[in-house]
């Protein structure tokens, strides 16, 4: 890891620290303060709504990034695992009467276990075959929620929840929800960032780069692939649970194949195998979404009616497709790589060389 000149690690604790230098501590502190006061800075509630969705998505994207970006197991069914978390959370609360705070980790565990179940083929399947097995998981899980026991899962209308409470606080406004979701996003990001540089994270990277070589070096492929599936889907489950606390109602069609593909697109755009990249990618895609939403009525007022309605129907598809295609061709390492280049420029300024 690159460090400014004159910064040396003289103790082991320094070497393994996440935050190494004083400026980094200050930036981190300022950033956390910024996160805490953010609702006060932006009085627009719609904006806060977007931030909340981004935070929930970020947790899920971290899971997919660990599974696909680090461990190399392509999952095209991540939204379905998010759905498992959401449905598990709602079922625990509705039918077992558990509190939300107990359902949250349980929902994460449930999603993780379902992830292990669908990760089982990963020992024998690789690459495309595994990606297809996860697409199969996507269809099977959403069909399960749609058709299995409508009296429990509500079929096409889905499930709904009362607002979440903690003591006297009711999480029903965007502000309150923000303060509930934000700490989870921060904790899960910290957890993900720490995990990928641990023994397990390095094992994941080894498996991604060459699984046979990793196995010969003593990494248990079966164990670590399943662990990757468990952790990735655990993140998805937590995210799904927060999602239902945020939306209060869920339907099976909110966790479609399209959403899974969007998440894969996010980690490509952000940068595979970079936790920071996952955050950048989520923000980028979500903002793009909003731009499309704003642009559509504008086009409707400028263009003739027939053309405008066609364009507004197809805009999201075209924009998303185009962005992914362009990123894959022009910057396959994603926004995180561009960020590194930018940092390098500053570090070496006024010289143009460096990296």
């Amino acid at each position, binding site marked *: 890891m690159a460090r400014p000149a004159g910064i040396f690690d003289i103790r082991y604790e320094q070497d393994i620290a996440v935050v190494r230098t004083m400026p980094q501590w200050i930036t981190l502190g300022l950033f956390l303060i910024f996160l805490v006061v953010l609702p006060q800075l932006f009085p627009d509630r719609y904006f806060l709504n977007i931030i909340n969705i981004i935070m929930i998505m970020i947790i899920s994207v971290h899971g997919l990034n660990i599974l*696909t970006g680090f461990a190399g197991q*392509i999952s095209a069914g991540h939204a379905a695992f998010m759905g498992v978390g959401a449905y598990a959370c709602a079922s625990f609360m509705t039918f077992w009467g558990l509190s939300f705070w107990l359902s949250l980790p349980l929902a994460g565990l449930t999603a993780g276990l379902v992830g292990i179940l669908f990760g*089982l*083929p990963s020992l*024998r*399947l690789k*690459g*495309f*075959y595994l*990606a*297809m*097995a996860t*697409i*199969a*998981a996507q*269809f*099977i899980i959403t*069909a399960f929620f*749609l*058709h299995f026991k409508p009296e429990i899962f509500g079929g096409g209308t889905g499930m709904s929840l009362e607002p979440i409470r903690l003591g006297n606080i009711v999480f029903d406004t965007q502000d309150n929800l923000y303060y509930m979701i934000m700490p989870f996003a921060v904790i899960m990001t910290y957890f993900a960032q720490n995990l990928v540089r641990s023994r397990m994270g390095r094992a994941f990277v080894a498996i991604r780069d*060459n699984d*046979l*070589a990793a196995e*010969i070096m003593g990494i248990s492929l079966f164990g670590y692939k399943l662990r990757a599936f468990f952790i990735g889907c655990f993140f998805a489950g937590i995210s799904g649970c927060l999602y239902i606390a945020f939306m209060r109602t869920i339907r099976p069609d909110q966790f479609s*194949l399209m959403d899974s*593909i969007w998440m*894969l*697109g996010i980690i*490509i755009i952000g940068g*595979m195998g970079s936790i920071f990249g996952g955050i950048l990618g989520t923000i980028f895609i979500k903002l793009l979404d909003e731009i499309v939403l704003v642009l559509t009525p504008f086009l409707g007022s400028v263009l003739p009616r*027939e053309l405008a309605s*066609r*364009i507004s*129907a*197809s*805009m*999201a*598809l*075209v924009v*998303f*497709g*185009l962005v*992914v*295609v362009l990123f*894959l*061709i022009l910057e*396959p390492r994603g926004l995180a790589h561009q960020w590194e280049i930018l940092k390098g420029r500053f570090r070496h300024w006024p010289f143009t060389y460096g990296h």
Partner: protein
Amino acid sequence: MYFLFYFLLSGVYLGALYSMIALGIVIIYKSTKVFNFAQGHLLMVAVLLGATLSQTFGIIIGMVLTVAATALIALLLERLTLRPLIGQPLIAALLMTIALGYLIEGGSLMVWGEGLYRYPELFPTEPFSIGSIAIEQGVVWAFVVVAVGFAVFVLFYQKAVLGKAMRATAEDHQVSQSMGIRVTHIFSISWVIAAVLAFVASIFLGSFSGGHYLNSHLGLKAIPAVLVGGLDSIRGAIVGGFIVGLLESLVTGYMSGELGEVVPFIVLLIVLMIKPYGLFGLVRIERI
């Protein structure tokens, strides 16, 4: 009994369609190692093009123009978007074809809108009848085309020089390049063949259900067909297509339509658990 026969018949029709889509995917995969998720979208564009072009230019010229336009689209896709990805990890090509699918779907939504387009009637409407059972001519032709197509491709891959070159490319890009095979040409040719297959499938799909932008979702259902048979096997694509088509039709008929959509994927998971490379796929031995 009558119902069973009817379900089997519609299963054969669906199976023939899936087989044609799966064949296109397999041919591209065999030589380029790219799984073409956009094959269903090519099919959808071919139907829409066929419907509109044959209306303006008449059936024969319209069909010729359609096959040319579809091939051109496939050629451009390969040249502009997939060629730069050679050497990139698997997920890049995977996401690329998915994103291309979205682009094509969005593009045709922009050009054609959400309407249903009437396809010219190419098959005589009078059904074959065996006793009291009537079989639509299109179904019979679909089955015949798949059978002939299978024979042609088996012969092509075994006898023709180009077919042998394509098999060599599938085996190893570098070695075949050093043997004097233009690997990039092979890539283009595979995509053109897949486009022509998409056009052939579009004739049957168009005659039965007309042109609509949601036709592309058939491509999604061809995925289990390809993988059940094995990604690199022509025989597998045909057999897989019919397995999935018959299963879907029978389950839809006797149980429920929603289950019919899922059953192919459940079968896919089971087959992959037992035979990871599909029924006829080539088992590759890996070395470090």
